[in-house]
């Protein structure tokens, strides 16, 4: 049973990846990566002495932003396009459940996003290494947490895509992905200034809201901090797993009843 499910999910994910390759999506990633190298090469022409932290910070920020963008774009159209092009009918005519379709698509989108992240990270690492700048072991922890974060973004975007239109999905997902930290900071700031009832409400929202900012260690990498203890990525893995589960279950509950 499990083996069969894994085969189905694997085949669907593979299909999503192949479709993306056919659509030349990865070309965009490669072009962006090349532009990044070009930008870095411009810096190198004039020398980088004294701007190490600034360069690391900027490079990792670019990696973060581009990988989030790619993850949202990959996952927002997985279901919507299958429906609009009516290719969902032959898929569901096979012994494949709607839940399987969702999980397969999620895995496909995540695999593509992970590939993009690794590509961008490789470019950033390579460009920085060319100028003698090293990122240290903590860079691997940064990458691991970014992978968790991309899995979360893919699941969240996939869930949104079964509720709203693709354009709205992209907007909402980007706002949530980029704006969650701002909300968290705002809650922390106003915590003591509001009435006890509002305080309880805000704290509740804070705890319930997904904190994607916990998966971003780029500042620690840039400023050369030591790696974090193993319990941090471990607990964040379970935190991510919990929210991925919630997002996929909500998406399934909606998609199950959706008229195609």
């Amino acid at each position, binding site marked *: 049973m499990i083996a069969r499910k894994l085969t189905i999910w694997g085949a669907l994910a593979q299909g999503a990846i192949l479709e993306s390759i056919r659509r030349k*999506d990865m070309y*965009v990633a490669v*072009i*962006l990566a090349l*532009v*990044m190298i*070009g*930008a870095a090469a*411009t*810096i190198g*022409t*004039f*020398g*980088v*002495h*004294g*701007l*190490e*932290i*600034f*360069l690391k*910070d*900027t490079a990792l920020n*670019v990696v973060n*932003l*581009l990988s989030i*963008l*790619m993850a949202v*774009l990959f996952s927002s*159209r997985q279901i919507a396009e299958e429906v609009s092009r009516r290719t969902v009918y032959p898929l569901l005519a096979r012994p494949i459940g709607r839940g399987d379709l969702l999980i397969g698509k999620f895995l496909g989108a995540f695999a593509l996003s992970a590939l993009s992240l690794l590509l961008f990270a490789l470019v950033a690492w390579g460009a920085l290494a060319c100028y003698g700048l090293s990122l240290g072991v903590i860079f691997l922890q940064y990458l691991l*947490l970014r992978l968790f974060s991309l899995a979360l973004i893919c699941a969240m975007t996939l869930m949104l895509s079964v509720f709203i239109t693709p354009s709205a999905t*992209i907007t909402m997902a980007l706002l949530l992905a980029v704006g969650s930290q701002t909300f968290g*900071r705002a809650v*922390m*700031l106003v*915590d*003591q*200034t509001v009435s006890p009832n509002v305080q309880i409400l805000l*704290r509740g929202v*804070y*705890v319930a809201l997904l*904190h994607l*900012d*916990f*998966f*971003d*260690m780029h*500042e*620690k990498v*840039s*400023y050369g*901090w030591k790696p*974090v*203890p193993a319990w*941090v990525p471990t*607990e*964040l893995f379970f935190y991510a797993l919990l929210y991925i589960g919630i997002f996929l279950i909500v998406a399934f509950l909606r998609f199950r009843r959706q008229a195609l």
Partner: protein
Amino acid sequence: MTERLQTIACAAGILLALAGVSGVASHVGPIMEGGPTGISMAEQERVDKAASASLLGEFRSSTADFLWIKVDAYVHGGVAMRGVTQQEKQSGTFDKVGSGDGGKENGNREHRGDETTVIPSASHDWRGWYGNIEREVSPYQDMNHHTHKDPKEALPLFRLMTVSNPHFIPGYVVGAAMIARDHTKVDEAIAFLLEGAKNNPNSIEIAEEIGELYSGRYKRQYEAGMPYLVKAIVLGRGRDRTTLTEDEDEAFENAYRWAVLNRREAGDFAIARKVAQEGLKLYPEDVVCKEFLKEHPEQPGNAH
């Protein structure tokens, strides 16, 4: 297709901005050598009135502000700080931020006790597990009695922020103080300030800082420094004191102090006494002026 175009457009924008900033950075270089490169007020006004300047003016100032924040993060190892809210002040429930050396570290701004870390310590954090995680994944440490990192890394950013906004006075003043931490580069610091003075001829802070560097122990060029201290005093006296910012007021008081010390070292006690008396009229608690007058009281028939 449209989505892909949007992706490319966004990314290209980010990368162009990156390339632009890096281009400027690389042109100026991290080492600030050579004489003043500022432009005249007339030229500056012409540049400021250009259509492109109007369009980019906001961006220019924002870039300088952004870099200013970055510099602060650099010297604090990335630990983010913010001002204390009124409620926190009243209740006292915030993490105090203070230099380990009591703020005497040359070149770094003083912590006046009105700051706290953006991420609170465990004792002031209601979030439990969430707080513990954030303190691990983000740059965080107890900032009470902290030391500053070598600001050498931040020097190019001061150059960038003053190129971006030539009227950004703190960029010149703090930048010069950080350059002057390396005592062999005091001339470089003065050159940077002279450029700032050319771009901001009415700045009390810049004039005072130039005078201070010339009069300090690494230059001891008292005659070269005195005109700048006098200029700072004249500029300060020409202003309504209630309109001075905190930084301007501090520079105004420092100008009196350094002018007294400058004249004392130059052996010109009469002028030093006069400056000290004038300074005390405006700043009655000033220790330097008080001490000088105590040690060198006016005696009839004595030039000293």
